[in-house]
């Protein structure tokens, strides 16, 4: 497991596209200390490896798939209604450098 340091947390925050104050990083470090301790305790539960990681609360396997029938698309002005930066019926961003 990656060691929790302020650098690691800062990097994680930046990768999530935001930053936090020093005070918040300190608070976060404290929270992590508790959480990691609790998770380590969970790791001690003896037969945990016997269990598959659970995403769905119960077996909800289905056979359903959507038929390939297109529906009426959104009118363009509706689709773009909430966008704050637009030009030529498209969303405009500063040049994306590849």
């Amino acid at each position, binding site marked *: 497991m990656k060691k929790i340091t302020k650098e690691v947390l800062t990097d994680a925050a930046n990768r999530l596209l935001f930053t936090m104050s020093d005070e918040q990083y300190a608070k976060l470090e404290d929270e992590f200390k508790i959480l990691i301790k609790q998770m380590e305790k969970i790791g001690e539960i003896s037969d945990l490896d016997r269990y598959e990681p659970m995403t769905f609360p119960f077996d909800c396997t289905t056979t*359903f798939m959507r038929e390939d*029938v*297109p529906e009426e698309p959104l009118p*363009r002005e509706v689709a773009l209604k909430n966008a704050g930066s637009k030009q030529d019926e498209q969303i405009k961003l*500063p040049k994306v450098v590849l």
Partner: protein
Amino acid sequence: MNFEAIIGIEIHVQQKTKSKMFSAAPNGFSRDPNTQIAPLDMAYPGTMPVVNKQAVINAIRVANALHMEIDHTLYFDRKNYFYSDLPKGFQITQQARPIGKNGYVMVAVPGGMKKIRIERIHMEEDTCKQEHFMDYSLLDYNRAGVPLCEIVSMPDIANGTEAREYAEAIRNIVVYSGTSDGKMEEGSMRCDTNVSIRPYGQKAFGTKVEVKNINSFKNVELAIDYEIKRQSQLLLQGKKIQQETRRWDEASGRTVLMRVKTDAVDYKYFCEPNITPIHMSDEFIQKAIETCPELYDSKKERYLKMGLSETDVEVILANPKTAAYFEEGVPFVQNAKNLANFLIVEINSYLNKNGITIQELELSPKTLGEIVTMQEKGGLSHKQCVDILNKVLEEGVSPEEAKKDLKIVAQVSDTDTILKFVKEALDNNPQSIADFKAGNQRVLGFLVGQVMKASHGKVNPAEVSRLLREELEKR
């Protein structure tokens, strides 16, 4: 020092389903930006993905054609990263459980066939399209959510030619299974290649360089061969190869550095909780396979059996629409080869001349078949049939009307009738007989002309020529 190249290819294929991978927005090419969108495609809060059945069927068909093991339960995962073209901030893909794995495809190499192993095929969704200008970019979400199949090869490819052959083999499968247009030029099929080299005999792999932005099959070959050469030269100069992503620059015929790869991006994959596992019965999978349109290789084999040459087969199969046209016309002719000739030469040149596709051709395969039959059974020459075809194409008349308008009459091949004309011609030209006997072969042409004239061109000139020789011998 000699190097061997180790090449793996990741191919993204855009599926031509009617709707998108996880939304019911139409999946259709539109010049009007942002007109093919459902709320999910712009990641509006609260929207949820629903799997497109046809996209799954297509993936099964391709997986089967690639001899893969097909997973009977579908799971999807989230690939998390931020990018301007990724509306949700994650892409729904199949990381842990691809729909197909452990397959292969056979490709032609000098002296035989080579097996290229394929690691996996999985389904995912396309990103939105970005158009770049001087100081800004514009986003069009029409492409966002279009179903993709990603096919990942094992590093079994040794050079540019094999890479092109491999890409073409995949193209043939995705096109003939009805999955995709498979057009690299238009981006409906994209090849990202990983190229590394090592001295012959060395076990360890060399540093991998990724080459992207390759926009044609020919360029797959060129880009890889260039990259092998570039890397070899670096090593020969004692330089190091750095792990990087390069892009193929068509204009200069070179690969150009895009970015140096630092540490690998952590995509923080996890199982998509908004799509419950989907079980596919044996029957469902079997039906998807059984109803798959006939694939390239099978068609090729069949056409060869019809007597077509290898080259003709390849020309026809290069475009599935041409192949479909051909197959529709076959029942109306005696010999498929004759139909193929008309299609490859006359029809293709007509299409090229008029800048239209075969789908836009108004001539039905049946009518073309009728014209071919005029040559096969109606006693008309190839040239005469071509004249009829051109009139039909240009004026939209029926072949019979064209024939009448052009005053084309069937040639007579009946020996007795022809012999009558031949004898008459010889009787009228005793000097020509003498000249022939004296060794002047050219009078033969004159005599044929006389026969044709007397018969108003109705007789078969080859037959005239043969009978003339026979008669001349006798006299």
